[in-house]
């Protein structure tokens, strides 16, 4: 199936891959599907995806190190624990394997200089913005925030974005939390249900994880709640909830796009024999609402559909890679 596109024909077959923190959750899947699509489109690339069954940093380290052995032409590293990848990533770079950090910014000592990712702080802010738009800037009350995995920087940044933005745009709203809402879907459901019962007067319940989105929707439906609910990511149930109006909005960190871009850039630079650029290649994200939900649902049908939908954006971003790059230190 791969190698049919014209762009890469003639050059040597590349062996590349991506390491993801787990092989089951939707966001990881979106990212590796994006990366795999880019490799297919580039052609003549042997692209390997590795990831432990459950989120487990040290296990991913192991798989990453194996990947560096087998796929030496370039590796994309998506992890939720950047600090523990400091030395393994540095070792890979020292061995001459080009490494791209995806979604979470690399640490200082990791020798990885190129990072593709969204601005999670900003995405959190955009969710808060959407909520304020719905509630009105003068609204008074509480908003409860949930975080599924304490200690994961990406999620912490989203929380911070939400809290800061509420404070800025709607001073009358008090944000509570973040509270621990667990990543297991059922535990997440229970945790949110307890929050909803413990805060019967809250204006909104906002989560920053994937399970938050659909579990909050389920609770709102079940309890016929009048509060607002929303969360992140594009799991099928989440999209459904936005479509039927249960969740007033959602944030799509556009994982497919991120994965696609990281892979496409890596392949391009390696083929061109250039060193990877230094800095943060910021990818956009979008707020989902009733206006764009149908498109997104169509987009999520398959990697092909996703590619078709993202193509204009991809072309535009790839046309000016270095222009979009910011200092790594700004990554959040």
């Amino acid at each position: 199936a791969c190698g049919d596109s014209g762009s890469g024909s003639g050059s040597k077959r590349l062996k590349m891959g991506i390491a993801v923190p787990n092989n089951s959750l939707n966001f990881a899947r979106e990212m590796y599907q994006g990366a795999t699509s880019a490799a297919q489109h580039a052609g003549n690339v042997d692209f390997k995806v590795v990831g432990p069954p459950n989120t487990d940093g040290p296990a991913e380290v192991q798989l990453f190190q194996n990947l560096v052995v087998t796929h030496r032409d370039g590796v994309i590293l998506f992890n939720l624990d950047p600090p523990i990848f400091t030395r393994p990533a540095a070792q890979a770079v020292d061995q001459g394997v080009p490494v791209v950090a995806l979604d979470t910014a690399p640490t200082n000592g990791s020798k990885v200089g190129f990072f593709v990712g969204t601005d999670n702080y900003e995405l959190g802010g955009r969710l808060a913005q959407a909520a304020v738009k719905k509630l009105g800037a003068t609204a008074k009350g509480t908003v409860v925030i949930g975080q599924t995995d304490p200690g994961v920087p990406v999620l912490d940044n989203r929380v911070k974005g939400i809290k800061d933005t509420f404070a800025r745009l709607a001073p009358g709203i008090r944000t509570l939390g973040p509270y621990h809402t667990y990543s297991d879907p059922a535990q997440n459901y229970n945790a949110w249900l307890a929050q909803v019962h413990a805060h019967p007067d809250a204006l909104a319940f906002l989560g920053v994880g994937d399970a938050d989105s659909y579990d909050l929707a389920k609770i709102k439906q079940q309890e016929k709640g009048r509060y607002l609910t929303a969360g992140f990511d594009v799991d099928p149930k989440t999209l459904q909830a936005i479509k039927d109006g249960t969740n007033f909005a959602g944030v799509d960190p556009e994982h497919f796009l991120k994965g696609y871009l990281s892979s496409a850039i890596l392949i391009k630079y390696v083929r061109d024999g250039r060193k990877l650029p230094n800095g943060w290649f910021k990818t956009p994200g979008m707020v989902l609402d009733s206006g764009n939900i149908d498109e997104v649902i169509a987009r999520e049908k398959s990697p092909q559909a996703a590619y078709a939908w993202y193509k204009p954006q991809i072309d535009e971003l790839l046309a000016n890679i270095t222009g979009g790059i910011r200092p790594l230190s700004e990554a959040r």
Partner: protein
Amino acid sequence: MTAMSAAATGASLGRVPRRLIRDEFGVIAVLIVIVVGVGLFHPDFLRTGNLLSITHNTVYAGLMACGIVFPLAMREVDLSVGGMYAMCMVLGAVLIRDGLSTWLALLVILAVSAALGALNGVITTYMRLPSFIVTLATAMLLRGAGLALADGKQITDLPQNDSFFTFLGGNTAGVPNAVWISVVLVAALAVLFTRTRFGARVRAIGSNPEAAEFGGLPVNRTRIAALGLSGLMAGVAAVFSLAFFMAGDPTVGQGYELTAIASAIIGGTPLAGGRGSVVGAAAGCLILSVVASALAFFQVPINWTTFATGGVILIAVGADTLLRRIQGSRSADT
């Protein structure tokens, strides 16, 4: 004479409740104390809706805990229930999505879960491996199968107005039907465990495997059946879960095996086997749920939630032993 026969009747009448009290008193008392205790600080916690939803949410792990009492009581462990639960939920969703009648899909789930649970027993028996290892591996197999079956995605697009979803996911007299049915199932399992030949065999094998072997008890068949039953209960949990959440999700049920085993142990089923309590396991699972929910009412900062959960569980089970000991010394006096 009359006094004596009266005493005898009293003893025989009093027997069942007395034993119940001895075995499950502590854990049920602790459950009540926690619920009431939290309610004192947060009356909202005692609202019927809240208590019912906690109960409803406990159904899934609770049924697994009740099922796992059987392997545990015969010194086997079943770590595959979480994977079984996820796989069955996906399987059901895929079948329904692909057009199978919902109630037929239910039967398929139950049959498959019982068969795969029994397969755990068959592998344990005929490969002569510890069930801990076998079920750890089959847990991955099952979870992996669920993931592959779902192609890594949640499965939605189910006919939400089908009677399967409206009935099993609905309420009767304000109480979720899943809770009603589960109560019946727990009672049935309790009878199965304490009053039937099968239950007695399970306990006998756990109590003295050597004697069971010597006495020609069908050890292998019983092991297969016990693991099959534990798989079946995971399948039942998957059915309720599917009916309520109306979607198949291959990522659910992580770590449920430990929750289920912990519930069973808290409820009075030792890892060393020989005895156990289905009702205790259900109560143990409720304790764990209540503790987790209660913390939401106390606004524990996120970085302290895990710590607080661990602490409260330790105190709760400690209180249970304390109660049992007080109870024990009182009954020893009489």
